[in-house]
């Protein structure tokens, strides 16, 4: 290809891990702030990236659901504040009558005057929660879940395979259910919904188990579960490391929760525990001897996208530490925005530039056109 022509970017699916890292980074950024302007901006960034980068898989359509759920969360959070509010001092917007509840219900009262401050505080908190859900929803919409399961780390090989089996079995279950429903119509039987359920469930289950046994045989004869070369000593080491790590996590969580414990028992302990546990996890993966066919690789776009998420979270953390007024604006005043906070949000837009075009029906067709062009060229060369 000549140097002057821009290389066309091939449509492909990114490594699912990259999208999850990006989304978790943005969700983390959201947890560090209750500033509604920043949260709205983050939401807009996430939506823009999802719109531009999602393919046409079934999972991609789920994003609408997460958006709706985010809105529901904001509304619920605010409504709780109104219904169960406890008369925060401030500007009264709406003076609702108070309804006291009996003593057993903690002696609380419902409704009461609604103040602007209470409403805003509920709204801010709700937006933060909603934004986390939307970010996770974005990862769901962008990352192909089947590929995610296939690129699980080796220590989760068995669980991952079982998950693949579960997802593969789902459509077969649907077929089986349809068949059994039709077949049961061919014979009479006791009426009633629960008994009817039995007539339906037992054949479906039997069918599923027969299938699962055949599947197991199929896996077995193709070498599934050939024992790896983990010597007992290494297995003991793996177990010890995992256990130590989890104990560390336990102690860390305790230290984190108990404000009176020494500082090192909190976050540092938790971090160390996680590190050790993950080391055990990696060790456990060593026993699995298998390779991957056309594995998803981490290429520059993946790395860039994952890093952008991490960076966004890191900058937001810095803002929360250094610019408290920006990160958590008081409800009485107009929220402010700083340059660093803007950067934290806009870092989330990196995928728009870095990601290759998504795999959709059109891009697939385009690729096949390219392929057939190659065929034509080859034929010309031959003749």
């Amino acid at each position: 290809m000549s140097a002057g022509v821009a290389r066309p970017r091939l449509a492909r699916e990114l490594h699912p891990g990259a999208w999850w890292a990006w989304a978790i980074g943005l969700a983390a950024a959201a947890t560090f702030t209750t500033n509604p302007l920043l949260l709205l901006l983050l939401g807009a960034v996430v939506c823009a990236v999802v719109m531009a980068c999602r393919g046409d898989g079934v999972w991609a359509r789920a994003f609408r659901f997460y958006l709706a759920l985010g809105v529901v969360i904001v509304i619920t959070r605010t409504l709780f504040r109104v219904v169960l509010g406890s008369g925060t001092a401030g500007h009264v917007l709406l003076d609702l009558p108070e309804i006291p509840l009996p003593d057993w219900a903690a002696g609380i009262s419902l409704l009461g005057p609604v103040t602007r401050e209470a409403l805003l505080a509920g709204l801010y908190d709700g937006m933060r929660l909603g934004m986390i859900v939307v970010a996770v929803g974005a990862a769901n919409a962008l990352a192909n879940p089947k590929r995610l399961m296939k690129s699980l780390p080796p220590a989760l090989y068995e669980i991952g395979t079982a998950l693949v089996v579960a997802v593969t079995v789902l459509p077969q279950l649907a077929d089986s259910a349809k068949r059994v429903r039709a077949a049961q119509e061919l014979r009479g039987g006791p009426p009633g919904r629960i008994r009817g359920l039995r007539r339906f469930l037992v054949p479906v289950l039997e069918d599923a188990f027969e299938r699962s046994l055949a599947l197991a045989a199929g896996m077995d004869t193709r070498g599934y579960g050939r024992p790896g070369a983990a010597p007992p000593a290494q297995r003991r080491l793996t177990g010890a490391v995992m256990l130590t790590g989890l104990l560390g996590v336990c102690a860390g969580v305790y230290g984190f929760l108990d404000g009176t414990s020494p500082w090192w028992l909190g976050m540092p302990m938790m971090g160390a525990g996680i590190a050790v546990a993950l080391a055990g996890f990696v060790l456990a993966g060593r026993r699995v001897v298998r390779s991957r066919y056309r594995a998803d690789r981490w290429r520059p776009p993946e790395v860039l996208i994952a890093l952008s998420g991490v960076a966004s979270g890191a900058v937001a953390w810095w803002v929360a530490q250094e610019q408290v007024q920006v990160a958590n604006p008081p409800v009485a005043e107009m929220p402010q925005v700083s340059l660093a906070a803007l950067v934290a949000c806009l870092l989330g837009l990196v995928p728009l530039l870095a990601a290759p075009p998504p795999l959709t029906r059109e891009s697939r067709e385009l690729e096949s056109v390219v392929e057939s062009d190659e065929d034509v060229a080859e034929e010309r060369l031959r003749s």
Partner: protein
Amino acid sequence: MIELREVRFGYDDRTILGGIDLRIDEGELMLLAGPTGVGKSTLLGVVAGLVPGYTGGVLRGDVLLDGVSVIEQPARERAHAIGYVGQNPAAWFVTDTVEEELAYGMEQLGLPPETMRRRVEETLDLLGIADLRHRDLRTLSGGQQQRVAIGAVLTMHPRLLVLDEPTSALDPTAAEDVLATITRLVHDLGLSVLVAEHRLERVVPFADRMCLLRSDGTVLVDEPAAVLADSPIAPPLVELGRLAGWQPLPLSVRDARRRTSSLRSALDRGPAHSPERVPGPTEVEAAELVVAHGRRVVLRGVSLTLHAGRVTALMGRNGSGKSTLLWTLQGRLARTSGRLAVGGADPHQLKREQRRAHAGMVPQTAADLLYLETVAEECAAADQSADAPAGRCAGLLARMAPGIDPATHPRDLSEGQRLALVVAIVLTARPPVLLLDEPTRGLDYAAKTALAAVLAELAELGHAVLLATHDVEFVARVADDVVVLAEGEVVSAGPVRRVVAESPAFAPQVMKVLGPDWLRVDEVASALEAAG
């Protein structure tokens, strides 16, 4: 390369394999035959390493791979050398696209990615499935699935391929494709193949040697012609050869045709016309039926008449609309247009209970009807729901498949017994019309003979029977009329003799050898007897 020495296998109460010695050499195609239930699958499982791990039971003897004992190794440790393909490939798929399925075994062996990629491409070409590489496995036809299943073990480069009834669920054309693939593997790659098959007529011509598993658990291994000389199960061609006293026995239609001259004089007069079953009153009258699933039109104007006392066979390749037609006659599926009367009523307008009294149906997977824990309970439930006197269902069952312990779990029955149970349950409501969807799947010659007798008896009693099947020889034996469907249209219909004579794909072996007058071996036998 693989050798079985004195292999014995059994459960506490019965012996399945009783001392088997068997050697399979490099590049050999070995055919394993025997009645269903004698343990063909068990023997294959012993070779592959699935027995006793997946079946329980006690295994003795030794299995040698290149002189090294592997009997203690489970299937996964033999995977690199022995490729095993089970009966129902669709149930064996682990992944969901063709390419991934081909790679799965290699991933387990831990082969480097470049090797995997190369072998996948080679295998796609070798099996002629390159255009299917991205397809969802469930959307493939039966023949394509079978080829993918074979490919999925071939990528591991095994030296022995073990196949358990690879064509039992396929229509004749797809079966030919799969068998052609297997012979190509033997001839081009020098692969050894051990294949179990109950429709011997298809594989015998290609087999180097044949292993007959007898019901006492012993084997007879020799050239196919020698084994078949007095085998209890034999394709019609061999039976014909035995009858005519041909030596060696013919294994292909071509062999047999070249020797028919010796029979010609005895058979001039044609078959003695056996008394035909007289058609009774019309039970089913369908005219210009159009049925669609969603937007896809499956039946395009099918007309069909079924008479009481006649057995009609419905033939056609997979996907030609046979099942849809049966479900429409049963009443579950609605039609877009056309007229339909079953026993004088439109079945789709009837309530479910009334449908059962008009037309009984046995679906493709008969076991879907069973949900109770013992055969006795199933029979009692059938009697109760049909308002029949207690014991009617059990009586029907005893007539069709005598000797079933009523306390057995229905799922533990053999394929043939289970089918008999379902037919009995359906017949308990005494429907004048009986519809069967592929009832011969997985049945051996003996079970088919029993089923043929049952169908003949039902016809005598005045039922109208319609059965969908691929099994040409079975049709020649039981059917009075044949309807052939293609693309949702009737391409030919009429008495069996005329219809199968018109289309070579549906002609039974005897007809291919002796000409359009002859359908069955017993006709030839009686003609020879009459001629002295």
